[in-house]
């Protein structure tokens, strides 16, 4: 990090506030320091507390100056139409995630309105963390889908309890309509739930399949998952030490950032065949996709290179390659037009602008 000139600190103290100078160490420039101070003040103004406001502001600035992420200091982060609570131990939702989630919601919504015969929409969000993706998709589809099932799964009990808190928090804020519980009329229910599970455990797939079969029996027709979405840990060991920002490295959970297998050497050899250590989650996620056959899959990746590695993995397995002929890589802002590119012997489409951010797969019949 380049050294900041002392005059900048002086300026911050003079123009903004005496609290701005320590904040400048983490914000690095005056406009963003001014913004963060303003957000802190706004937060203090809307949240009542026994602590006097000036003291609270000082406390916030102190914590932030020590490198703690602003989202942990204020306890929230806006995400799409929602306000997501953030707590130490659970990854903070990123704006890139927000961008592709909103785009995904739009795609699901338009495909739902285009063929209204498919009443049920089921979404599985793996490594859900704060539950932001699941909640935002639920929010976007709530108005038009009469049958909506969203499930979020995370290995961390902290994350699962925070995701549930976020559900009730946004219900209280009226950002979400109250989900309709399953009643006698099976075609009128909207559910969202968060459960704790290890997606690497062998029992995970069988329980998911059982659930799916149960649903099929209830509805008497073929119900595949509509969407499998995941923001798994994807940073490599050296990358964690080298590329991550200090506030991320020191304050956010390593579990959510760097893929590590805790199941012992068996799992490691099983999934490590020709797969880089930072890609092991994708190998597993593609396995899950192969079994559950979701209509669409979206996996967040770190960069274009990792994205093409995931596409390679997909092409190596004939079954999944046939299942998902339609492959896209989305960049940070997935709103813009397509470009075409070939990876291996496969032509894929690249959408948007910015760094490669996610791999989007779509089944042929969609």
């Amino acid at each position, binding site marked *: 990090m380049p050294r900041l000139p002392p005059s900048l600190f002086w300026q911050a103290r*003079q*123009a*903004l506030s005496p609290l701005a100078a320590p904040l400048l160490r983490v*914000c690095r420039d*005056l*406009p*963003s320091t*001014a*913004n*963060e101070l303003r*957000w802190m003040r706004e937060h203090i103004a809307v949240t009542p507390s026994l602590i006097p406001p000036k003291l609270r502001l000082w406390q916030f600035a102190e914590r932030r100056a020590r490198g703690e*992420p*602003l*989202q942990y200091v204020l306890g929230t*982060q*806006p*995400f*799409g139409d929602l306000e997501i609570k953030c707590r130490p131990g659970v*990854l*903070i939702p*990123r*704006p*890139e*995630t*927000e*961008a592709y989630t*909103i785009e995904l919601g739009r795609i699901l919504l338009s495909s739902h309105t285009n063929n209204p015969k498919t009443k049920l929409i089921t979404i599985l969000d793996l490594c859900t963390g704060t539950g932001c993706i699941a909640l935002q998709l639920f929010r976007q589809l709530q108005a038009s889908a009469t049958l909506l099932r969203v499930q979020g799964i995370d290995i961390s009990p902290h994350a699962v309890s925070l995701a549930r808190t976020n559900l009730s928090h946004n219900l209280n804020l009226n950002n979400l309509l109250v989900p309709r519980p399953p009643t006698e009329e099976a075609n009128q229910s909207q559910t969202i739930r968060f459960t704790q599970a290890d997606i690497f455990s062998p029992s995970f797939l069988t329980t998911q399949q059982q659930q799916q079969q149960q649903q099929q029996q209830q509805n008497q027709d073929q119900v595949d998952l509509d969407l499998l979405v995941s*923001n798994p*840990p*994807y*940073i490599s060991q050296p*990358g964690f030490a080298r*590329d*991550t*920002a200090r*506030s*991320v490295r020191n304050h*956010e959970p390593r579990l*959510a*950032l760097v893929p590590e297998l805790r199941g012992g050497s068996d799992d490691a050899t099983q999934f490590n065949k020709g797969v880089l250590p930072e890609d092991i989650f994708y190998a597993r996620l593609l396995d899950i996709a192969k079994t559950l056959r979701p209509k669409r899959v979206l996996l*967040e990746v*770190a*960069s274009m290179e990792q994205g093409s590695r995931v596409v390679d993995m997909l092409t190596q397995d004939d079954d999944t390659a046939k299942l998902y002929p339609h492959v896209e890589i989305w960049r*940070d*802002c997935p*709103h*813009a*037009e397509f470009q075409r590119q070939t990876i291996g012997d496969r032509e894929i489409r690249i959408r948007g*602008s*910015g*760094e490669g*951010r996610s791999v989007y797969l779509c089944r042929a019949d969609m």
Partner: protein
Amino acid sequence: MLAAPWVCRSCVRSLGRAGVPQLWRKASTAASPTGAPPALIARARKIAAEHDQLVTSLETDFDPQMAKRVGEISRVATALKEFQKANASLSELYSLTQSDDAEMREMALDDLESTKAEMEELGRNLSLALTPKHPFADMPCLLEIRPGPGGTEGRHFGATLFHMYQAYCVSKGYRTRVVKYETSDSDGQKGAEGEPPLTEAVIEVQEPGAYAAFRGEAGMHRVQRVPATEKQGRTHTSAVAVWVLPSFPENNPEIEADFEDPENDFYIDPTEVRTETMRARGAGGQHVNKTESAIRLTHIPTGTTVSMQDSRSQSSNRVYAWRVLRSRIAAQRREAREEIARNLKNSVLNQSQITRGDKIRTYNYQQDRCTDHRSGLDVHNLPNVLEGGEMLSKIIDSIQAWLTEKDIQNLVAEEEAEALESSRKKGK
């Protein structure tokens, strides 16, 4: 004898002068009240004929576009009918005044006065019906306040204007939302009443029809006062620009669908807009945790840029930035279109067309006065104006009336020019 024991000579002399110096404006900016000029009536006849024709054709087969047009021009047709009725009775009365019966003559003369007054009224109605409704009149609006060059003083006054409009909207019961409120960081000086130096503010007045209500506010607002920063007590003059742009209702699927329609003023081709996020290049996603949510949109063909950083969420910043960009582009397009129309029609210079250079109003603190230069209205009790009180609404009403008069005048001039053109063609 004189009541006063002594009067100075110059005063005595001044008493003998022909008149008292005039303390009011000699020229009036109001359009002369006429019933309805012949050019207008000719135009109304044309429109009424079209109306009748459309109505008869609508009876046989229904066409939604035709029905829409009928709805638009029916106002003119009815106004013309009433006008003609009054006109007929007026000529009848005139013929009666020529009658031999003295009693009859008297009665006719009595009625003549009231009928003439009625004619005036109906003529005004007719001209009002003929003046095209402003295309954005029903829309909510964005009020942009930007201090002109001239340092801190203008910025302080910008903050005052911001509060004035907010208070005015509160007193009128309009719903507002502050889209943007940016104060200057570099100079921390506060104004006389502790107002911060404003660099830019945008208020959205969410009331439908707010654009029509605030249309007259656009232009340069001049302030004359002794600034808080002035040590020697000199009066400074600075200016703040206020722009009024049409906004569009948030949850209106009808208008939102129209964004896709290239004919719409609000349409912007997404490929023509460059989006810049102020995030650092390089690794993103889980690697970094920047709170920087600012976004800047640049409309490449016009070079219009909008930057937004108020919310912590980038996506909501993006939504608001798009909205402001759409409004600005729509206003520019409309201005350009009007410019072209003006040149084509070769009509009189439209003075109500406000370009940003004209000063429209002066706030003078020393004289406790607020003057609007277009309607020529002088209002005292400046604090009440700045609180958005009755005095401000008086000024705004006067501007509204003035704008309507101007619209009518322009219409008449336009009609006359057209008539001249056609007669010249016939002559050839």
